[in-house]
């Protein structure tokens, strides 16, 4: 048996520096997780079963260690102005305690990263960035805020713990540990500070699963204690620790982009279906290029598809217009079984003329072309409460 290209690289693979550990690493090992190297971090890919962890988030509540993600603060009277220039979405309209998903673009419109901007006050903003992009992003942010005297940037990644609590019972679980804080009253994409287990944490009603839930910011030194408390307090909610495997199947069903798979420096937000986070009525890096691209129209687009035959599309598989012959017309960026939708699903870039929902395309799954039906995005949407 040999592993195909989608198998994550093994933790023990030689020739690379030892992967970094989050404050929860020992917990993952004690819980029997399988650990992989994910962008330089030793992270749990699964504890017992990706399918069970996925289900826990859709029906109960799941905990994710996302301490590896980066946090950057912008402090000073120029914080809003500085961040506005860096991101495609319009953060000027945010109120205190509000968060917004956005892209960060290069001058040519390619994507530096996707992130969430949290406005605490008019003079303090925190941006949460992808773990694998921390150094690149911070260098980019520094380069483009250099010379400002009204805003100071600081990397909070090492001192900040981040735990995602996701699932229909997430709010009830937080109430159990922090009933005074009123986190369960937060609206989507809002956050507030409150006390939990004697520590001041931030709870944000955000996530990466397509489910209701929160992300808890805490001091890194308190992350393990909070993790333990959440696990032991949520037994009757079916709380489960969840790894990167379930995080990926959950986000894919919800059609949330994964940087490095679905979006990167060669894709624009428009192509990626993220035009809704580009607001052209404010000044930001990449705006002229994106204006031009918008006016010129798209040549390709990220589409969602459901496999009709037996086969799983995986990152990098070619897409064809015909069941045989011809040249590839596109490429798969993400693919997996969608455990809740019960089908093999995927995302990929195809020419705009082939991007219509209902069309059949063919994914070359290791030499076999399997029919794939273009579907409406997302594959999964939680029902309104």
């Amino acid at each position, binding site marked *: *048996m*040999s592993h195909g290209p989608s*198998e994550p690289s093994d933790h023990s693979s030689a020739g690379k520096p030892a992967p970094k550990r989050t404050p929860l690493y020992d917990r993952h090992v004690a819980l029997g997780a399988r650990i992989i190297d994910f962008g330089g971090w030793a992270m749990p890919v699964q504890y017992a079963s*990706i399918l069970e962890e996925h289900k826990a988030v859709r029906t109960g509540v799941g905990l994710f260690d996302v301490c590896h993600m980066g946090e950057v603060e912008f402090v000073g009277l120029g914080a809003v102005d500085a961040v506005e220039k860096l991101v495609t979405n319009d953060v000027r309209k945010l109120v205190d305690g509000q968060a917004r998903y956005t892209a960060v673009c290069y001058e040519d419109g390619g994507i530096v990263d996707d992130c969430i901007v949290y406005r605490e006050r008019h003079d303090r903003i925190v941006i949460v960035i992808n773990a694998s992009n921390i150094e690149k992003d911070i260098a980019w942010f520094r380069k483009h805020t250099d010379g400002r005297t009204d805003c100071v940037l600081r990397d909070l990644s090492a001192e900040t713990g981040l735990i995602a609590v996701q699932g229909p019972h997430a709010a009830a679980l937080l109430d159990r540990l922090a009933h005074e804080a009123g986190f369960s009253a937060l609206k989507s994409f809002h956050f507030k500070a409150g006390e939990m287990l004697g520590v001041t944490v931030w709870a944000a009603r955000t996530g990466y699963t397509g489910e209701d839930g929160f992300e808890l910011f805490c001091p890194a030194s308190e992350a393990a204690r909070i993790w333990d408390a959440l696990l032991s307090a949520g037994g009757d909610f079916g709380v489960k620790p969840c790894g990167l495997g379930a995080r990926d199947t959950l986000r894919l069903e919800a059609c949330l982009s994964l940087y490095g798979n679905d979006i990167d420096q060669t894709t624009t937000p428009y192509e990626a279906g993220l035009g809704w986070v580009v607001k052209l009525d404010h000044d930001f890096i990449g705006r002229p290029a994106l204006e031009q691209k918008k006016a010129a129209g798209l040549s390709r687009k990220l589409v969602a598809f459901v496999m009709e035959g037996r086969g799983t599309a995986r990152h990098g598989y070619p897409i064809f217009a015909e069941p045989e012959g011809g040249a590839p017309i596109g490429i798969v960026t993400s693919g*997996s079984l969608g455990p809740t939708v019960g089908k093999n699903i995927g995302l990929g870039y195809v020419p705009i003329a082939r991007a219509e929902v209902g069309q059949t395309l063919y994914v070359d799954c*290791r030499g076999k072309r399997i029919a794939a039906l273009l579907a409406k995005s997302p594959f999964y949407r939680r029902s309104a409460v």
Partner: protein
Amino acid sequence: MSKDYPNDLRYTNDHEWVRINGKIATVGITAYAVEQLGDITLIDLPKEGEKFARGAQLATVESVKAVSDIYAPVSGSVVKVNVPVGDSPEMLNEDCYDEGWIVELEMSNPSEVDQLMTSAQYEKELSDNAH
């Protein structure tokens, strides 16, 4: 998951196991392989009568996270495939040595069995590779 490697089986570097009964070699994948794959969601089986040289791709197994080839541990032709496993590949996660066998090969060169590892050799191989 238990990491048992039954004594009556022979093993390959690629994490297949083989149970020998006369000229018939029953083939499956080891507990180690199953653990590496995680939840198995799909298995592509060969057809009865198909012939495979030792080391040729015999079947494909997919899990939520990975796709892997299963190679013929010995040369031979397929006399039986485990149809229930094709329909319910998660059986491999539950029992990869008995209910979860994959194919039976009629060996064309039974002396190839001598090149397969014993359970002790296979376990040593696994622990050597872990460090």
